[in-house]
Every structure is written in structure tokens, then in C-alpha cells.
């Protein structure tokens, strides 16, 4: 016993290091623990409160550049509104003819990005809306430029959003033109990859990528990005498809949380089938 105490005294730095490493590793499986999630929600709320005044200062600094960008964007949008109005009228006429049901629109909650965690691998954003605003985990986050990500953690007044540029992010997607399905995930750069698309399928540069009906988190048809490169890699049965996301994640200030929850019956049925 004395030898053990002596050993621990002599090598106490290493004993402490080993103990702390063990505790850290023991925390890994607790990521999905409900109590831990609740505790994290409280800390996020606390820090979110401190983020607010700092984000006001940083926003002021970037205001001039933002103003110019918005003016330019406004002119482009005005043009697009005109074209969209025309397209919508045409769409209504066609829908009536085909007796399609009008797709229901979802309620949106406007949110300000009050914090960002950018460590080059697991990018998340902190939003100033939470459970009190009707925001729940797994709800989609969108902006005027397309899909931003999904809510992964909520407190009463704040939420953490996992953006597309995050190694854990994956969603079912499809090529709007050819209706080819695939999985969108981040490739570690400023681009996304559309994977699981066979070499023989029809995907071209410039194709629009949107969320698909297979997703249990996002409603179908949300714009994700544009195909920027298609390559056939020798020895692989699938295409290497690079997608330029529609959203500029370096300038994310205002977003919307879509108050959308996937059909629980569908998810339950699929989970039941997977378990069988």
C-alpha cells in the first residue's frame, strides 16, 4: 500500500493525466444522455445571454459591408420577384389543370445568429430563439439562400444549430432535374458531396440539389446547392459529385427555423421495420 502511495506521489502528474483522460473518454457515451443535454441547454442559455451584447458590436463593425451587399441583393431580388410572380401564375394555372394539391407552407421563426462555433470540423451556430418560440430539436434551419442546417439542442430562449458544414450532417437529397437520389454530406472544405450516385445516372454540372421526400428531418424541395463538379473515379462504382452550397456560411446573421416536424407515424413504421 505504501509503495502504491509512494508511486502515486512520485508520478502524480501522470496519475492525474491518466485520471482526467479516463474521465474525458468516459464522457463520450454521454453525448445523447437527456440529463446532460438539459445541462448543456442551461449553459448555452447562459452563454447566449453573454453573446448578445458582443454580437451587437461585431454586427456594427460589419454593417457597412452588409448594407452594400443587401442593396445589391435587393436589386437582384426585385428582378427575381418579378420572374417568380410570373412563374407562380403559370404554376397555379398548371396546378389547377393537373389538380395538384397546393403544398402547405410551413411557419417560420426568424432568428439571429448570436454565436458560432467554427473549429473547421464541427460547425454549429447559436440562435436567439428557443422552446418559448416553438423551436424544437430536429427542426430545419433555412435562410433566403437555402438550407442552413437543423436544430440539435434547445433551451428556453436559445438553440444550437448544426449547419451543413459539419461532419455529423447528412441528409437525403435529390437532383431536381433528373430526380436522382443521393446523400448530401460535408467534404471538409467549403463544398458538399452528393454520394451514393451510380456512374450510370444522369447528373451534370449546374444541376440543382434539393432535399428529398426520404428525409425524416427536412420537408422535400428545400434548395441545398448547385452541382459544381462531376467526376468518374476509376475503380469506383459511384460518381464523385461536388455541390456548392447555396448558403454563404461565413456571413450567416439572420436565419429562420422552420416549425416542421416529420411524420411520426412514418418514422415509427420505418424504425419498426429496421428492428425486425
Amino acid at each position, binding site marked *: 500500500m505504501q509503495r502504491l502511495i509512494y508511486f502515486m506521489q512520485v508520478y502524480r502528474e501522470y496519475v492525474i493525466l491518466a485520471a482526467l483522460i479516463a474521465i*474525458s473518454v468516459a*464522457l463520450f457515451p454521454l453525448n445523447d444522455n437527456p440529463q446532460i443535454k438539459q445541462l448543456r441547454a442551461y449553459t448555452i442559455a447562459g452563454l447566449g445571454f453573454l453573446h448578445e451584447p458582443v454580437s451587437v458590436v461585431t454586427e456594427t463593425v460589419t454593417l457597412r459591408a452588409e448594407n452594400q451587399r443587401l442593396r445589391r441583393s435587393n436589386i437582384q431580388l426585385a428582378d427575381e420577384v418579378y420572374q417568380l410572380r410570373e412563374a407562380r401564375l403559370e404554376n397555379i394555372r398548371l396546378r389547377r389543370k393537373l389538380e395538384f394539391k397546393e403544398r402547405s407552407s410551413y411557419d417560420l421563426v426568424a432568428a439571429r445568429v448570436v454565436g458560432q462555433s467554427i473549429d473547421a470540423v464541427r460547425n454549429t451556430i447559436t440562435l436567439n430563439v428557443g422552446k418559448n418560440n416553438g423551436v424544437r430539436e430536429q427542426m430545419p434551419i433555412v435562410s433566403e439562400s437555402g438550407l442552413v442546417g437543423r436544430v440539435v439542442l434547445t433551451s428556453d430562449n436559445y438553440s444550437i444549430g448544426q449547419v451543413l458544414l459539419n461532419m455529423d450532417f447528412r441528409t437525403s437529397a435529390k437532383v431536381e432535374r433528373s430526380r436522382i437520389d443521393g446523400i448530401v454530406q460535408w467534404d*471538409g472544405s*467549403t463544398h458538399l458531396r452528393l454520394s451514393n450516385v451510380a456512374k450510370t445516372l444522369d447528373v451534370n454540372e449546374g444541376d440543382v440539389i434539393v432535399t428529398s421526400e426520404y428525409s425524416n428531418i427536412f420537408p422535400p424541395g428545400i434548395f441545398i446547392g448547385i452541382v459544381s463538379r462531376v467526376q468518374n473515379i476509376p475503380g469506383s462504382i459511384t460518381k464523385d459529385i461536388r455541390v456548392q452550397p447555396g448558403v454563404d456560411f461565413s456571413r450567416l446573421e439572420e436565419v429562420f427555423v422552420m416549425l416542421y416536424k416529420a411524420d411520426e407515424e412514418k418514422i415509427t413504421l420505418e424504425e419498426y421495420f429496421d428492428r425486425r
Partner: protein
Amino acid sequence: MIKYARYVLVVVALLVFQASVIPFISLVGVTPDLLLIYVVVLSLREGQIPGTVGGFLIGLASDFVTGDFLGLGALTKTIAGFVAGFFFNETSPLQPLSTYTFLVVVGVAAIAHNMIHFGFLLQGMPVGVSEIVFKFIIGTTVYTVVVALIPYFLFSARSKSIHT
């Protein structure tokens, strides 16, 4: 007691700064790690054991407030604090902070930190080895060392004013 309260306040301020201001100076998605720099400062001022324990607590706090993978920040910053602690000068704890040693220690601790951090997180990602090494590990390390020049100059100026 006041000393510890000061450390806590600095960590909270750095957590807020890291989340709200640092994203504006990111270069191709690479950002400096202010908390890592502070873990190194802690180790060089207080010693290896306080640096290791401080690294663990700072990493854990970072995991909690950023929604990152719980335990990974604690693990990597524990190791960074331990590595930096080897450079602790018991007779003159402020001395390494005001010399180039500080930048070297930040670099060494950052390499150890980033190798584990990105090695763990990039498993299964469609990212090449060269990109992991040059962009994520070396890029983040270099950027962190560059930002560490700010506390280095502050400590140097303070050291000179004490000696004159």
C-alpha cells in the same frame, strides 16, 4: 480565491470571444484556438498539474457551451496543458511567457491538441490525409501561434517594465 475567480472570468470572456468574434477572422474555415493559448499560459504560470487540470476544466466548459462532442475538448486540452507543463519554470514562472519559448510551447501544445482533435473528428470523413495534415492540423496550429503573438508581446512589455 480572487486569483481563481479571475481565471474563471477570463475563461468565460474567451468562450464568448471565441464564439462571437473569432469566426469573423477565420481563414478557409481555420480559426485560432484562444482557449488553447490560455491553457498554455496557465501551465507556464502555475505548473504542470494546475495546467493539466485547468486544461480539462476549460475543455469541458468549451464542450458544454459549443455543443461539440462532449469529452473531446476536455481530453485534448488536458493533454495540451500537460505537454505545456513540461516547460514550466518553477523559479521564474513568468520568464517563459515573455520569451520565444512561449510561442514554441503554444506550437507544440497545439500540434498535440490538433492531432488528437482532428484525428478523432475526421474519421470516416471524405477528407484526404494531406488536407488533414496541412489544413486542419498545421493550419490551425500556425494560426493559433500567430494569434499567440498578442499575449507574447503583452507579457514581454510587462516583463520589461518590471525589470526597468
